[in-house]
């Protein structure tokens, strides 16, 4: 990935990824909704050695902006060969159970806006017959649990969409990489007590990039989550539904 658009570039995991890409001398088009924070990320990337850094502050839930955003990235960087899609919200499960608006906000950000952006990007990549699309999903999409099934559903739907996209783009030489982090110590989880399973954004970013380099299909980062989720997926539903998870 030499010319990369990063969607949700102010996310902690995205920032760590941007640093690694910058150190490799990549050109970056950074997108986030907070202009001041985005500028801080852009300057950091430029200082750390990115060949070129351009950015655009936009709310990614503004679907009408997506086409223009991708156009701008192509123009500014003279093409694109990589996508890192990172934006997302955790939402509040209790709130979502009470209100459709709260549920919709999570689905809109984590699923619909991703689908809208990937629709535009996939067509470009398919036409150019090259590129790597990396999307940050979550282990939460592997199985619905009462504690966060709205967020889980948004990521689960995303996973299925990405499977289909991967299937479609395989013949065009475009890799679609689904990254499923476990717990990561970022602002999204600032309110949670931390335990040994929490990984640093840097560790997740390294896992993400090595999966992208190897054009993997689906990866759990850190790898231990492949095992944990295997166990969780294997529990029979009749038993699972009675568990407190």
């Amino acid at each position, binding site marked *: 990935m030499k010319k990369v658009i990063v969607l949700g570039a102010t996310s902690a995991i995205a920032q760590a990824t941007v640093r690694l890409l910058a150190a490799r001398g990549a050109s970056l088009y950074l997108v986030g909704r907070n202009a001041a*924070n985005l500028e*801080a*990320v852009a*300057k950091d990337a430029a*200082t*750390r050695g990115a060949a070129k850094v351009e950015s655009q502050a936009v709310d990614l839930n503004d679907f009408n902006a997506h086409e223009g955003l991708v156009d701008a990235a192509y123009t500014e960087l003279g093409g694109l060969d990589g996508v890192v899609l990172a934006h997302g919200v955790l939402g509040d499960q209790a709130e979502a159970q009470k209100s459709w608006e709260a549920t919709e906000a999570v689905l809109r950000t984590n699923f619909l806006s991703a689908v809208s952006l990937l629709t535009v990007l996939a067509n470009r990549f398919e036409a150019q017959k090259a590129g790597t699309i990396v999307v940050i999903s979550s282990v939460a999409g592997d199985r619905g649990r009462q504690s966060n099934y709205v967020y889980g559903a948004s990521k689960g739907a995303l996973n299925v969409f990405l499977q289909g996209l991967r299937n479609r783009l395989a013949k065009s030489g475009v890799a679609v990489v689904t990254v499923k982090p476990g717990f990561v110590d970022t*602002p999204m989880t600032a309110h949670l007590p931390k335990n040994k399973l929490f990984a640093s954004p840097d560790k997740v970013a390294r896992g993400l990039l090595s999966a992208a380099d190897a054009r993997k299909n689906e990866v759990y980062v850190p790898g231990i989550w492949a095992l944990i989720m295997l166990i969780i997926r294997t529990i029979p539903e009749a038993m699972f539904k009675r568990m407190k998870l």
Partner: protein
Amino acid sequence: MKSLESWGRYPQVEQRTHSLVWRTDNLPREGTPLLPHGLGRSYGDSCLNAGGTLLLTSGLDRFISFDPSTGVVRCEAGVTLDMILRLAAPRGWFLPVTPGTKFVTVGGAIANDVHGKNHHRGGTFGRYVRRFELLRSDGSRRVCAPDENPDWYGATIGGLGLTGLVTWAEVQLKPISNPYVLQETVPFGNLDEFLVVARESEKDYEFTMAWVDCLARGKKVGRGLLYRGNFAPPQFDGLPLAKSHLSHGIGLAVPMDMPAFCLNRLSVSAFNWLYYHRQNGKPTQRLTHYDPFFYPLDAIYAWNRIYGKRGFLQFQCVVPYDTARDALKEILERSSRGGLPSFLSVLKTFGDIPSPGWMSFPRQGVTLAMDFANRGEKTWRLVEELDRLTREAGGAVYPAKDARMSPESFAAYFPRHAEFARYLDPGFSSSFWRRVNPVSLPFSLEAERGVAAAQPQSLLAIR
């Protein structure tokens, strides 16, 4: 509440934490005193805030700019010296001043106005801080520089994190031709010899420091090895690693909480003896990468755990040349007599280059740093005794390495403390600050308890 330690792992206190994420964010309103916390490489309680909130700056680790033609780097305050070296050393720039570990933040380096092996030539870190932004709990932001808000600039350098949060800073680096240091080792037989060799070395060597054998007694008090060096000239540019910021990979790891008996007198004596005799008394010269030269301890991950759960106390003083010989002799003798040997003891001379920081610790004279395994009362009394000796010698103790200095000592060491106090952020405080500025109570404790003349220290328990 979460327990976060200082590097000495003593004292242990309970405090809340708040992670800072963006330099443009406002400070949290916690209702309890705030204190910035970098990498916790200070030893005692100056980076602790019992009952208050630590503002963790590790998320403020972004670079803002770096100009390889001028060597000016601008970055957020949580950027570490290690990160700066990774960025700048391969492009021919080095830190103008560096402490003995690269795992400190720029904010921490400013707040303690840190010094390095080149103090006699370069002064303190604060001298190279061109400007920084200070964010106060009232939400105000000030850019501080020698010619812009100079009073805030002077109060914040060496200001122990108490004037507000430094969000970003601009530092002038210094050019190097390659990452190598030409180093020479000179043994000295006692304190008098040290004073001669150290002063002599200042003329031709940019970097000097000495390891001292803390168990030597009598005529041999203060014997040790002096390390002196300069960055290598350009003819060494072509060597391998020339573009590297590291000489080696990650070093040994000290296993978690080694029991305190690892540090019994015998093992320390053996260590000291070996260390002292390995050079056979002959000066040697060699070429080394800057990494092991400046940061030998960084190769041993979490070495502070070698002292076990109870931690250790660090003591670093500086005494003026007039009193240096006698005072240091006394200090070294006291600590070896106390049966509490110091594991790592370092001697160095400080030059007379003034710092812009009002509360800066370094001043002309000789500085001695020691560490003592924490054995409770006995250790605390020893360190308090060393504090008293330092004060009597007209010297000063380094707050970044202190857990025991008395309020009187603090006032004596830092004559500008009253002026400084006017610049304190009312929303900020630290365990150290409360200890050296005990609150005066509206009644007399002595009268209350009916005891004779209690020292102000007895109020230390009030936090």
